[in-house]
Protein backbone atom coordinates (compact mmCIF):
# COMPACT_ATOMS: atom_id res chain seq x y z
CA UNK A 1 0.00 0.00 0.00
CA UNK A 2 2.85 2.38 0.84
CA UNK A 3 4.23 1.91 -2.68
CA UNK A 4 0.89 2.82 -4.19
CA UNK A 5 0.59 5.99 -2.13
CA UNK A 6 4.17 6.95 -2.98
CA UNK A 7 3.43 6.42 -6.68
CA UNK A 8 0.22 8.47 -6.39
CA UNK A 9 2.02 11.38 -4.69
CA UNK A 10 4.81 11.29 -7.27
CA UNK A 11 2.26 11.17 -10.10
CA UNK A 12 0.25 14.06 -8.63
CA UNK A 13 3.36 16.24 -8.37
CA UNK A 14 4.50 15.20 -11.85
CA UNK A 15 1.11 16.16 -13.32
CA UNK A 16 1.10 19.43 -11.39
CA UNK A 17 4.58 20.23 -12.72
CA UNK A 18 3.43 19.55 -16.29
CA UNK A 19 0.46 21.89 -15.81
CA UNK A 20 2.43 24.70 -14.10
CA UNK A 21 5.12 24.55 -16.82
CA UNK A 22 2.35 24.29 -19.49
CA UNK A 23 4.09 21.26 -20.99
CA UNK A 24 0.69 19.54 -20.87
CA UNK A 25 -0.27 21.86 -23.75
CA UNK A 26 0.86 20.47 -27.16
CA UNK A 27 0.87 23.97 -28.69
CA UNK A 28 3.46 24.99 -26.10
CA UNK A 29 5.66 21.98 -26.92
CA UNK A 30 5.36 22.56 -30.68
CA UNK A 31 6.40 26.17 -29.98
CA UNK A 32 9.68 24.80 -28.62
CA UNK A 33 10.23 22.25 -31.40
CA UNK A 34 9.50 24.86 -34.10
CA UNK A 35 12.94 26.45 -34.06
CA UNK A 36 12.36 28.13 -37.44
CA UNK A 37 9.03 29.64 -36.31
CA UNK A 38 8.21 31.83 -33.30
CA UNK A 39 10.55 29.88 -31.08
CA UNK A 40 9.54 29.40 -27.42
CA UNK A 41 12.48 28.12 -25.31
CA UNK A 42 10.28 27.29 -22.28
CA UNK A 43 10.64 23.50 -22.64
CA UNK A 44 14.43 23.78 -22.32
CA UNK A 45 13.97 25.66 -19.03
CA UNK A 46 11.63 22.92 -17.72
CA UNK A 47 14.17 20.25 -18.65
CA UNK A 48 17.10 22.11 -17.12
CA UNK A 49 15.40 22.74 -13.77
CA UNK A 50 13.90 19.22 -13.60
CA UNK A 51 17.29 17.65 -14.43
CA UNK A 52 19.07 19.93 -11.92
CA UNK A 53 16.73 19.03 -9.05
CA UNK A 54 16.76 15.32 -9.96
CA UNK A 55 20.57 15.32 -10.31
CA UNK A 56 21.05 16.61 -6.73
CA UNK A 57 18.40 14.39 -5.12
CA UNK A 58 19.38 11.25 -7.08
CA UNK A 59 23.01 11.54 -5.87
CA UNK A 60 21.82 11.68 -2.25
CA UNK A 61 19.16 8.97 -2.66
CA UNK A 62 21.40 6.47 -4.49
CA UNK A 63 23.92 6.60 -1.62
CA UNK A 64 21.43 4.76 0.61
CA UNK A 65 21.45 0.95 0.35
CA UNK A 66 17.80 0.61 -0.71
CA UNK A 67 14.63 2.62 -1.30
CA UNK A 68 12.17 2.98 1.60
CA UNK A 69 9.43 0.67 0.34
CA UNK A 70 11.33 -1.76 -1.87
CA UNK A 71 14.43 -3.96 -1.45
CA UNK A 72 16.11 -2.67 -4.63
CA UNK A 73 16.69 0.43 -6.75
CA UNK A 74 15.47 -0.38 -10.27
CA UNK A 75 17.85 1.89 -12.10
CA UNK A 76 18.78 0.75 -15.63
CA UNK A 77 22.39 -0.43 -15.87
CA UNK A 78 22.59 -0.87 -19.65
CA UNK A 79 25.31 1.30 -21.14
CA UNK A 80 25.34 0.46 -24.86
CA UNK A 81 23.93 2.92 -27.38
CA UNK A 82 22.41 0.15 -29.50
CA UNK A 83 20.23 0.01 -32.59
CA UNK A 84 16.95 -0.19 -30.64
CA UNK A 85 17.79 2.97 -28.69
CA UNK A 86 18.60 4.90 -31.87
CA UNK A 87 15.72 3.61 -34.01
CA UNK A 88 13.20 3.80 -31.16
CA UNK A 89 14.16 7.36 -30.21
CA UNK A 90 13.92 8.38 -33.88
CA UNK A 91 10.43 6.86 -34.20
CA UNK A 92 9.34 8.56 -30.96
CA UNK A 93 10.74 11.88 -32.22
CA UNK A 94 8.48 11.69 -35.28
CA UNK A 95 5.40 11.01 -33.15
CA UNK A 96 6.29 13.78 -30.70
CA UNK A 97 6.78 16.28 -33.53
CA UNK A 98 3.51 15.35 -35.27
CA UNK A 99 1.32 16.11 -32.26
CA UNK A 100 3.38 17.74 -29.49
CA UNK A 101 2.47 15.02 -27.01
CA UNK A 102 4.94 12.78 -25.22
CA UNK A 103 3.58 10.08 -22.89
CA UNK A 104 3.46 12.08 -19.61
CA UNK A 105 1.64 15.14 -20.92
CA UNK A 106 -0.64 12.97 -23.10
CA UNK A 107 -1.88 11.06 -20.03
CA UNK A 108 -2.05 14.18 -17.83
CA UNK A 109 -4.07 16.07 -20.45
CA UNK A 110 -7.00 13.69 -19.92
CA UNK A 111 -7.86 16.10 -17.07
CA UNK A 112 -9.01 18.59 -19.73
CA UNK A 113 -11.82 16.23 -20.76
CA UNK A 114 -11.13 16.52 -24.49
CA UNK A 115 -11.32 13.79 -27.11
CA UNK A 116 -7.88 14.29 -28.76
CA UNK A 117 -5.84 12.89 -25.86
CA UNK A 118 -8.14 9.84 -25.75
CA UNK A 119 -7.47 9.12 -29.46
CA UNK A 120 -3.72 9.71 -29.06
CA UNK A 121 -3.52 7.49 -25.95
CA UNK A 122 -5.53 4.65 -27.53
CA UNK A 123 -3.03 4.65 -30.41
CA UNK A 124 -0.09 4.97 -27.99
CA UNK A 125 -1.19 1.91 -26.00
CA UNK A 126 -1.64 -0.04 -29.26
CA UNK A 127 1.96 1.02 -30.02
CA UNK A 128 3.06 -0.23 -26.57
CA UNK A 129 1.32 -3.52 -27.31
CA UNK A 130 2.84 -3.90 -30.79
CA UNK A 131 6.34 -3.27 -29.44
CA UNK A 132 5.68 -5.72 -26.60
CA UNK A 133 4.73 -8.46 -29.09
CA UNK A 134 7.89 -7.78 -31.14
CA UNK A 135 10.02 -7.78 -28.00
CA UNK A 136 8.65 -11.07 -26.68
CA UNK A 137 9.03 -12.71 -30.13
CA UNK A 138 12.53 -11.46 -30.82
CA UNK A 139 13.60 -11.91 -27.21
CA UNK A 140 15.43 -8.60 -26.99
CA UNK A 141 15.46 -6.35 -23.90
Amino acid at each position, binding site marked *: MNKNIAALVSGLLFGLGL*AVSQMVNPAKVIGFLDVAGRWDPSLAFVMVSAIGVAFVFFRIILKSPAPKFDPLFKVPDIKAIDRNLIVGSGIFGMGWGLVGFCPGPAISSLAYG*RIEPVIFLAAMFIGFYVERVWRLRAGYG
Partner: protein
Amino acid sequence: MENFTPYSALIGGVIIGIAAAILLWLNGQVAGVSGIAGGILDFERGDLNWRLYFVAGLIGGVALYRLAGGPLQDIEISTSVPLLVAGGLLTGIGTRLGGGCTSGHGVCGIARLSTRSIAATVIFMVVAGLTVFTTNHILGAGT
Protein backbone atom coordinates in the same frame (compact mmCIF):
# COMPACT_ATOMS: atom_id res chain seq x y z
CA MET B 1 9.66 34.76 -28.28
CA GLU B 2 6.41 36.38 -27.14
CA ASN B 3 5.16 33.04 -25.76
CA PHE B 4 8.25 32.41 -23.62
CA THR B 5 7.34 31.72 -19.95
CA PRO B 6 10.68 31.22 -18.16
CA TYR B 7 9.46 31.44 -14.54
CA SER B 8 6.54 29.00 -14.75
CA ALA B 9 8.82 26.70 -16.80
CA LEU B 10 11.51 26.72 -14.10
CA ILE B 11 8.98 26.22 -11.25
CA GLY B 12 7.21 23.42 -13.13
CA GLY B 13 10.56 21.76 -13.79
CA VAL B 14 11.45 21.88 -10.08
CA ILE B 15 8.14 20.17 -9.22
CA ILE B 16 8.79 17.47 -11.85
CA GLY B 17 12.31 16.94 -10.44
CA ILE B 18 10.88 16.52 -6.91
CA ALA B 19 8.26 14.06 -8.24
CA ALA B 20 11.05 11.97 -9.82
CA ALA B 21 13.10 12.09 -6.60
CA ILE B 22 10.14 10.88 -4.50
CA LEU B 23 9.55 7.86 -6.75
CA LEU B 24 13.23 6.85 -6.64
CA TRP B 25 13.60 7.52 -2.89
CA LEU B 26 10.50 5.60 -1.81
CA ASN B 27 9.94 2.94 -4.50
CA GLY B 28 13.34 2.72 -6.19
CA GLN B 29 11.71 3.40 -9.55
CA VAL B 30 12.76 5.76 -12.32
CA ALA B 31 9.95 8.20 -13.19
CA GLY B 32 9.80 7.35 -16.87
CA VAL B 33 6.20 7.62 -17.98
CA SER B 34 6.46 5.38 -21.07
CA GLY B 35 8.07 2.64 -18.95
CA ILE B 36 5.54 2.98 -16.12
CA ALA B 37 2.51 3.11 -18.43
CA GLY B 38 3.86 0.53 -20.91
CA GLY B 39 4.58 -1.87 -18.03
CA ILE B 40 0.85 -1.94 -17.24
CA LEU B 41 0.46 -4.30 -20.25
CA ASP B 42 2.60 -6.92 -18.49
CA PHE B 43 -0.17 -7.29 -15.87
CA GLU B 44 2.42 -8.63 -13.48
CA ARG B 45 1.05 -9.43 -10.05
CA GLY B 46 2.51 -7.12 -7.41
CA ASP B 47 3.92 -4.78 -10.06
CA LEU B 48 0.69 -3.42 -11.50
CA ASN B 49 -1.09 -1.28 -8.91
CA TRP B 50 1.65 1.28 -8.27
CA ARG B 51 1.70 1.94 -12.02
CA LEU B 52 -2.03 2.63 -12.06
CA TYR B 53 -1.71 4.92 -9.01
CA PHE B 54 1.08 6.87 -10.71
CA VAL B 55 -0.98 7.28 -13.89
CA ALA B 56 -4.02 8.34 -11.84
CA GLY B 57 -1.77 10.88 -10.12
CA LEU B 58 -0.64 12.33 -13.46
CA ILE B 59 -4.26 13.07 -14.38
CA GLY B 60 -5.21 14.08 -10.82
CA GLY B 61 -2.33 16.57 -10.59
CA VAL B 62 -3.64 18.49 -13.60
CA ALA B 63 -7.25 18.16 -12.37
CA LEU B 64 -6.28 19.67 -8.99
CA TYR B 65 -4.38 22.45 -10.76
CA ARG B 66 -7.48 23.30 -12.78
CA LEU B 67 -9.77 23.16 -9.72
CA ALA B 68 -7.40 25.48 -7.87
CA GLY B 69 -7.84 27.99 -10.70
CA GLY B 70 -4.47 27.53 -12.40
CA PRO B 71 -4.02 29.81 -15.43
CA LEU B 72 -3.91 27.00 -18.04
CA GLN B 73 -7.62 26.13 -18.14
CA ASP B 74 -7.52 24.66 -21.65
CA ILE B 75 -4.97 23.25 -24.07
CA GLU B 76 -4.52 23.71 -27.83
CA ILE B 77 -4.25 20.71 -30.12
CA SER B 78 -4.24 21.46 -33.85
CA THR B 79 -3.67 17.91 -35.12
CA SER B 80 -6.12 16.02 -37.35
CA VAL B 81 -7.44 12.63 -36.19
CA PRO B 82 -5.31 10.56 -38.62
CA LEU B 83 -2.16 12.36 -37.44
CA LEU B 84 -3.21 11.93 -33.78
CA VAL B 85 -3.41 8.18 -34.42
CA ALA B 86 -0.09 8.14 -36.30
CA GLY B 87 1.57 10.23 -33.58
CA GLY B 88 0.22 7.95 -30.85
CA LEU B 89 1.39 4.77 -32.59
CA LEU B 90 4.86 6.18 -33.28
CA THR B 91 5.14 7.43 -29.69
CA GLY B 92 4.03 4.08 -28.26
CA ILE B 93 6.35 1.95 -30.39
CA GLY B 94 9.29 4.35 -30.32
CA THR B 95 9.40 5.04 -26.59
CA ARG B 96 9.28 1.34 -25.69
CA LEU B 97 11.80 0.31 -28.37
CA GLY B 98 14.11 3.16 -27.36
CA GLY B 99 13.66 2.38 -23.66
CA GLY B 100 12.28 5.75 -22.60
CA CYS B 101 10.73 9.11 -23.37
CA THR B 102 11.15 12.72 -22.33
CA SER B 103 10.80 11.86 -18.63
CA GLY B 104 12.76 8.59 -18.41
CA HIS B 105 15.65 9.49 -20.74
CA GLY B 106 15.26 13.28 -20.90
CA VAL B 107 14.96 14.03 -17.17
CA CYS B 108 15.89 10.98 -15.07
CA GLY B 109 18.51 9.50 -17.42
CA ILE B 110 20.33 12.78 -18.01
CA ALA B 111 20.20 13.47 -14.25
CA ARG B 112 22.09 10.18 -13.80
CA LEU B 113 24.53 11.31 -16.55
CA SER B 114 23.66 8.22 -18.61
CA THR B 115 25.26 8.49 -22.07
CA ARG B 116 22.48 6.26 -23.42
CA SER B 117 19.85 8.70 -22.23
CA ILE B 118 21.77 11.73 -23.50
CA ALA B 119 22.01 10.06 -26.94
CA ALA B 120 18.30 9.16 -26.92
CA THR B 121 17.28 12.69 -25.92
CA VAL B 122 19.40 14.31 -28.63
CA ILE B 123 17.93 11.92 -31.23
CA PHE B 124 14.25 12.39 -30.33
CA MET B 125 14.61 16.15 -29.98
CA VAL B 126 16.36 16.56 -33.33
CA VAL B 127 13.90 14.23 -35.12
CA ALA B 128 10.92 16.01 -33.48
CA GLY B 129 12.35 19.37 -34.56
CA LEU B 130 12.79 18.12 -38.14
CA THR B 131 9.25 16.71 -38.10
CA VAL B 132 7.80 20.06 -36.99
CA PHE B 133 9.92 21.85 -39.59
CA THR B 134 8.53 19.51 -42.27
CA THR B 135 4.88 19.87 -41.24
CA ASN B 136 4.95 23.61 -40.49
CA HIS B 137 7.34 25.02 -43.06
CA ILE B 138 7.58 22.55 -45.94
CA LEU B 139 4.09 21.03 -46.06
CA GLY B 140 2.58 24.11 -44.42
CA ALA B 141 0.04 22.16 -42.39
CA GLY B 142 0.45 24.34 -39.31
CA THR B 143 0.95 28.03 -38.79
